[in-house]
């Protein structure tokens, strides 16, 4: 199948390259150039909107910054093309950072709000700062001269085509690498992502800055293409068109943005030609009605579900006959298109086509890179990034208080974990065990108290830095990256082993390939250790519940932790699986990893724990070796409510 895919890509490039010779109309060549430039921007925007799931309402403004940086540098300072373009990328990327760093700190619609405000301001500033930008009068720029040859419109077509091909290549490389995995992970499960060392905040900013830089590239290319830029271009309408293009084309694909670019460049032309509009709208209504009829008769959709979109498309077609000039209403049409896509085509046209192809020829669509590496015994274990140097306890949580309003979930709890032991943490529901877990991994900041790990105070630090220090965990409510395969999940845990930089990813340097290969072998080995080797390429959400829990353990071990926190690992496992689990935990301890185990299955706790701490009502009520704890009266009371029955 990839043979077909590769050859169609080559065919596409060749066709695009040959186009100007077959059809030398300068107007259409210029149109293609604009499509190419928009496509580059949209590929970048897809990283933010399609992968990370944030809305940017300022990409037209970033496009404008790219355009004006190149324009101003050339117009005011005579900076040549080959320097102006990289400068635009850098400057726009910087603006991206300026926006993203404050706006993404907290969850919520803040990035959308900030970028919307930014978009308005930039237009105003470009208009006002006439000393720099020439204000509303605009800037003129000439296409570059290379080796005494003045680049023509057709020449420029090839430059932009080359830029587009390179952009697709580079972005593809990035998204298929550990960086792309990080983007997907933070969207799938932000909590797990942070706890596996992939900082949600950090990578969201990274994604936005990348898309800003790409927008800058597109902007600078645009300046040289148009040879005249003015502030009115980079307005809210353009930002809306960009968003429409990304979601209509199809997120998380490379062809989607290109298709989207074609649509939005052609759209104004369609709207200004009323005859063309009528033809196209009738065509769309017919397709919608036909598909709906098919879907309803085969039972995939109810009549109620298809009624609204079919009526809407017919209404649109009919409205074309009542109006002479659609351009007055174009924003209404864009708005309706966006609504339509958000409700009925969430994965865009490419996503829709893909889902059709999957139904008839599933083997043609592969969603994940199949990793065929086989693991082995040698590669399961690795040295922690931060070797254990603490002389005394590995972890000391001193006088931890965790208060939610008036509720003291943890009341002056002290926990001392000795190196190389399996330390059990038990207690009835609501006693504070999971709260303690969350405090230790940085998800909650304790109201008071101190946590020292491996000689370092870690109280109040972020989950991703705590993961970096060497503490890994599993979750009571499974937090896997559902849409990724099992082995990809483990690879996210191995994110910290990818030390190479963006440059290495782009150029696929030996260092990059080496680290990738090593990680894949390691991941496969870890899957073998937990017994999931043959399910490596299965999507995590399709795995049975018990296997999902084991996958979480494999992923946590990938972090090379010195301390592993297991939150009810035996829940949902059958008896033989629990025996396997006990063997696994023993092996983990055998390799020098300290374990804290929260469990309700007493047989598990009794058979492997060296020490057991019992919590009740947010306080430590007993601690010691398992046998002693089991016969402790206070413990028996806590679990059975002995005093309550004395009535």
């Amino acid at each position, binding site marked *: 199948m990839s043979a077909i895919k590769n050859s169609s890509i080559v065919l596409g490039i060749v066709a695009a390259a040959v186009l100007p010779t077959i059809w030398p109309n300068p107007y259409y060549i210029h149109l293609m150039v604009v499509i190419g430039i928009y496509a580059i921007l949209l590929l970048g925007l897809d990283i933010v909107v399609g992968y990370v799931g944030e809305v940017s309402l300022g990409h037209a403004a970033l496009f404008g910054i790219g355009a004006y940086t190149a324009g101003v540098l050339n117009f005011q300072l005579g900076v040549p093309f080959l320097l102006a373009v990289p400068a635009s990328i850098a400057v726009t990327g910087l603006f991206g950072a300026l926006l993203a760093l404050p706006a993404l700190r907290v969850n919520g619609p803040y990035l959308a709000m900030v970028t919307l405000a930014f978009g308005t301001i930039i237009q105003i500033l470009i208009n006002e700062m006439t000393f720099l930008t020439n204000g509303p009068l605009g800037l003129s720029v000439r296409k570059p001269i290379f080796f005494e040859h003045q680049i023509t419109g057709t020449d420029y077509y090839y430059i932009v085509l080359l830029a587009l091909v390179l952009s697709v290549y580079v972005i593809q490389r990035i998204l298929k690498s550990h960086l792309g995995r990080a983007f997907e992970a933070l969207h799938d499960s932000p909590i797990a992502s942070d706890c596996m060392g992939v900082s949600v905040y950090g990578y969201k900013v990274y994604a936005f800055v990348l898309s800003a830089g790409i927008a800058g590239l597109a902007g600078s290319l645009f300046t040289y293409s148009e040879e005249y830029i003015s502030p009115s271009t980079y307005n809210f309408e353009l930002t809306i068109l960009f968003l429409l293009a990304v979601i209509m084309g199809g997120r998380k694909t490379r062809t989607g943005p290109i298709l989207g670019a074609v649509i939005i460049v052609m759209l104004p032309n369609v709207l200004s030609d009323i005859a063309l509009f009528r033809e196209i709208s009738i065509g769309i209504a017919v397709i919608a009605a036909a598909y709906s009829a098919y879907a309803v008769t085969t039972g995939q959709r109810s009549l109620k579900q298809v009624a609204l979109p079919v009526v809407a498309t017919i209404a649109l077609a009919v409205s074309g006959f009542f109006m002479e000039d659609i351009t007055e209403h174009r924003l209404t049409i864009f708005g309706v298109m966006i609504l339509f896509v958000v409700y009925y085509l969430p994965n865009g046209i490419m996503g829709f086509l893909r889902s059709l192809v999957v139904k008839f020829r599933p083997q043609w669509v592969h969603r994940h890179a199949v990793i065929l590496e086989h693991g082995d015994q040698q590669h399961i274990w690795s040295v922690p990034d931060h070797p254990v140097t603490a002389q005394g306890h590995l972890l000391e949580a001193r006088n931890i208080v965790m208060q*939610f*309003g*008036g*509720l*003291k979930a943890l009341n002056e709890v002290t926990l001392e974990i000795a190196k190389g032991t399996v330390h059990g943490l038990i207690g*009835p*529901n*609501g*006693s*504070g065990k999971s709260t303690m877990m969350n405090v230790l991994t940085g998800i909650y900041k304790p109201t008071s108290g101190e946590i020292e790990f491996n000689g370092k105070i870690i109280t109040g630090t972020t989950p991703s830095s705590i993961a970096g220090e060497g503490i890994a965990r599993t979750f009571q409510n499974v937090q896997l990256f559902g849409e990724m395969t099992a082995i990809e999940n483990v690879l996210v845990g191995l994110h910290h082993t990818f030390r190479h930089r963006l440059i290495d990813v782009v150029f696929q340097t030996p260092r990059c390939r080496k680290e990738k290969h090593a990680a894949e072998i390691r991941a496969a080995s870890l899957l073998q250790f937990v017994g999931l080797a043959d399910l490596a390429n299965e999507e995590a959400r399709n795995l049975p*519940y018990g296997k999902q829990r084991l996958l979480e353990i494999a992923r946590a071990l990938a972090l090379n932790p010195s301390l592993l926190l297991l939150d009810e690992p035996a*829940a*949902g496992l059958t008896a033989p699986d629990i025996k396997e689990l006990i063997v696994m935990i023993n092996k983990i301890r055998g390799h020098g990893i300290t374990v804290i185990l929260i469990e*309700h299955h*007493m047989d598990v706790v*009794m058979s492997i724990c060296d020490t057991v701490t019992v919590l009740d*009502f*947010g306080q430590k009520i007993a601690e010691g070796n398992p046998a002693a704890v*089991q016969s402790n009266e206070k*413990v*028996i*009371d*806590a*679990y*059975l*409510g*002995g*005093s*309550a*029955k004395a*009535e």
Partner: protein
Amino acid sequence: MLQIKELHAAYGKVEVLHGISVDVPQGKVVTLIGSNGAGKTTTMRAVSGMIKPVSGNISLNGKNITGMTSNRIARAGLAHSPEGRRVFPTLSVTDNLLLGAFPRLTFGRERGDVPGDLTRVFELFPRLRERENQLAGTLSGGEQQMLAMGRAIMLNPDVLLLDEPSMGLAPLLVKEVFRIIRELKERGITMLLVEQFAAAALDVADYGYVLENGRISVHGPAEQLKNDPAVKAAYLGAAH
């Protein structure tokens, strides 16, 4: 009063209840016991509408309430004091209690004497009266449990669901909670009680069902269950 027949419930793809049947006659206290993860809270949530059952039939006072949304079930007369208390932290104690009577103050339930009932709830929980204007989020765990129970009572329900009322409470407070349950029983309130502390639950209940891995393994009059070896195995699963 409350009849559950062949109830199947799931979380996502994982089926957690595999066809359980429980009957709560009027004026009686029925308890559902079992170890963690057996499905007790899932049962409560399915009955009160917090989750939608996969299949089965639930009827309240002869009316079919299967699959209804929780607010409609509340208005039909079923009150649920949920696991984890879930009081409204930014509202005062009094406001929390008044919200319990929301269907009576708006529509759905007969209005009756709301201020009088409020006074009676305060008599039952004197600690709450001391804190009547305090924000519920600042109350301690035990006080929040009292508030959640009081709030449920304010509905003047036909059936009262109590989900793990003792969870996370100090032994002294657990005693208090069960004393109150006994008093409610004396007032003739029909209750379905889910508890981790099987012994205490069986002490106050008339009838009991033992839930194991999503199925009823044993059921019978509470006295009988207390002495049943199978029951001892189920509720001693927490600690041997």
